[in-house]
């Protein structure tokens, strides 16, 4: 479905994505994993052909750079947060995107119904909650029934219930044969949805792996958020990564995926690097598919 060859994207002197190559088969799902600034969003934008880059990318055999419009017809894109004019009514937004994607009004209504937004057509976009906006974005992405769904941190602005709904929907899409590429900061999402994980760091692929290899445990994994002095967060993230942990910096602390019975391990690692942990917070439980807790 997707072939990416040596994708490189620079912003001035800063290299956001450097020599990224991978292939993804029809019906597979790929997670882009990495800390903020690792290049996930930029890589997604390159794959969508919305920014200029070096290298080659094709979707369904269609060259993204040369025939971007046709390549994007095969993609439904769900951004981190739906960016649309706030004054527009939901029905009007759907009609506009249905027009762009050559979807019939009946199909638009079906998509809205499918994400549970029927009855909200008269609401303006600004009156929708974060979860509803995300569902609207998903409805728009599915308008023309594209074979590939690309999602950029689709649950980052949602509460636990909203996240659960979106993950549930994406699993249904995957089971229906859609190819998924998504950027995520959440191990639970990656474990639930991805067949493969590309770990990006400073724009490069650090590892091309699977969720089970990335979090090698047969016990349920938990995410712990460590609160540190802001100035030491980058050092701490580096130290933990070198120790083999999956780490995510999201501006509200350092999130680390650990086995349930090894929650203190990141603290010990940081203590060895003389980095003080001020507080620790245990986040949601996560389940590895096929492994009972």
């Amino acid at each position, binding site marked *: 479905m997707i072939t990416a060859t040596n994708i490189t994207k620079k912003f001035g002197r800063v290299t956001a994505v450097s020599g990224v190559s991978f292939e993804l088969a029809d019906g597979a799902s790929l997670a882009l994993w990495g800390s903020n600034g690792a290049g996930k969003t930029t890589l997604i*934008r390159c794959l969508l052909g919305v920014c200029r880059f070096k290298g080659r990318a094709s979707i369904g055999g269609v060259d993204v750079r040369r025939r971007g*419009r046709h390549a994007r017809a*095969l993609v439904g*894109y769900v951004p981190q947060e739906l*960016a*649309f004019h706030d*004054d527009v009514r939901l029905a009007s937004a759907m009609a506009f995107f249905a027009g762009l994607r050559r979807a019939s009004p009946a199909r638009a209504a079906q998509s809205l119904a499918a994400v549970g937004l029927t009855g909200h057509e008269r609401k303006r976009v600004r009156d929708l909650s974060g979860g509803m906006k995300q569902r609207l974005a998903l409805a728009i992405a599915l308008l023309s029934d594209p074979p590939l769904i690309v999602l950029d941190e689709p649950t980052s602005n949602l509460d636990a219930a909203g996240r659960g709904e979106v993950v549930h929907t994406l699993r249904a899409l995957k089971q229906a044969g859609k190819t998924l590429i998504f950027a995520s900061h959440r191990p639970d999402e990656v474990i639930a949805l991805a067949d493969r994980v590309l770990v990006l760091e400073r724009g490069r692929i650090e590892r091309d792996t699977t969720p089970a290899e990335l979090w090698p445990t047969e016990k349920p994994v938990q995410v712990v958020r460590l609160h540190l002095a802001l100035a030491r967060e980058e050092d701490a993230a580096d130290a933990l990564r070198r120790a083999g942990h999956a780490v995510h910096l999201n501006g509200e602390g350092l999130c680390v995926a650990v086995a349930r019975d090894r929650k203190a391990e990141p603290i010990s690692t940081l203590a060895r690097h003389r980095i003080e942990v001020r507080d620790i917070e245990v986040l949601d439980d996560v389940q590895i598919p096929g492994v009972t807790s």
Partner: protein
Amino acid sequence: MTTLASSAITASDGSPGRATTPSRSFVGGIAAFARREFRDAIASRWFLLYTVAFTVLAVGVSFLSLSGVGSHGFAGFGRTAAGLLNLVMLVVPLMALTAGAGAIAGERERGTLIYLLAQPVSRTQLILGKYAGLAAALVCSLCIGFGVSAAVLAWRTGGVGITAFAMLVAFTAMLALAMLSVGVLISVVSRRSAVATGIALFVWLTLVFVSDLGLMASSILFRLRVQEIFGLAIVNPMQSFKMAVIVNMNASLDVLGPVGAYASFTLGRALPWVLAATVAAWAVLPLLLATVLFARRNSP
């Protein structure tokens, strides 16, 4: 939500995960953006404000023109067209430049541009569609203003001089398209919409006030010849517009002094066409440049 897997994601041929609809045709994509832009524009405050202001001013000028001739039914449209000329030169470029300036920069600032570009459309379709939608909205706004003014004139004076008035409307529409084109170009090169609006206002001031003064100063300082002054004058679309309207009112360009006389003498019957072509070039060339620059941008 649970129905999604069984309904929304199954292709119309029943096979999962296969695209069944290609991207829109090139013109279809432009039309989709144009429709949305038109709807957004006519629902916006700026459209309402400009339309009301232009209509009130146009009707006001019409009444003033009538009071000057005693409303005895002669030359109403012609005199009003002359009166409206200065109003048009002030208001219409401001409307068009600011509308164009927000077109791309506003989307970029709101973060909506990346989402639009992620759809099966090209950058060229997006920019041309936005231009077409805004152009339609602007022309509608002008038609309302001129239409109300024309209704007042027709009621008070009959149809005398209506051709000159119609030509004023046509040339005003061309000027609006030209200034909109410049506004869109400004929008493409500006990261923020406030910056784009600021540049648009600066361009408006330059075209409306500074260029005239600059031309006068240059002609004195550099002792420019009359043909050079004419050449420099028609580079400014406002001056081309003004001369074109005056010529089409069957008036002599002698009112513009030696430069006008030179233009009339040298170009003769071709003069209106040259002036119209100059304004048209301002509608086409900046838009073309904006389209090329937008298509070549490194990022959204």
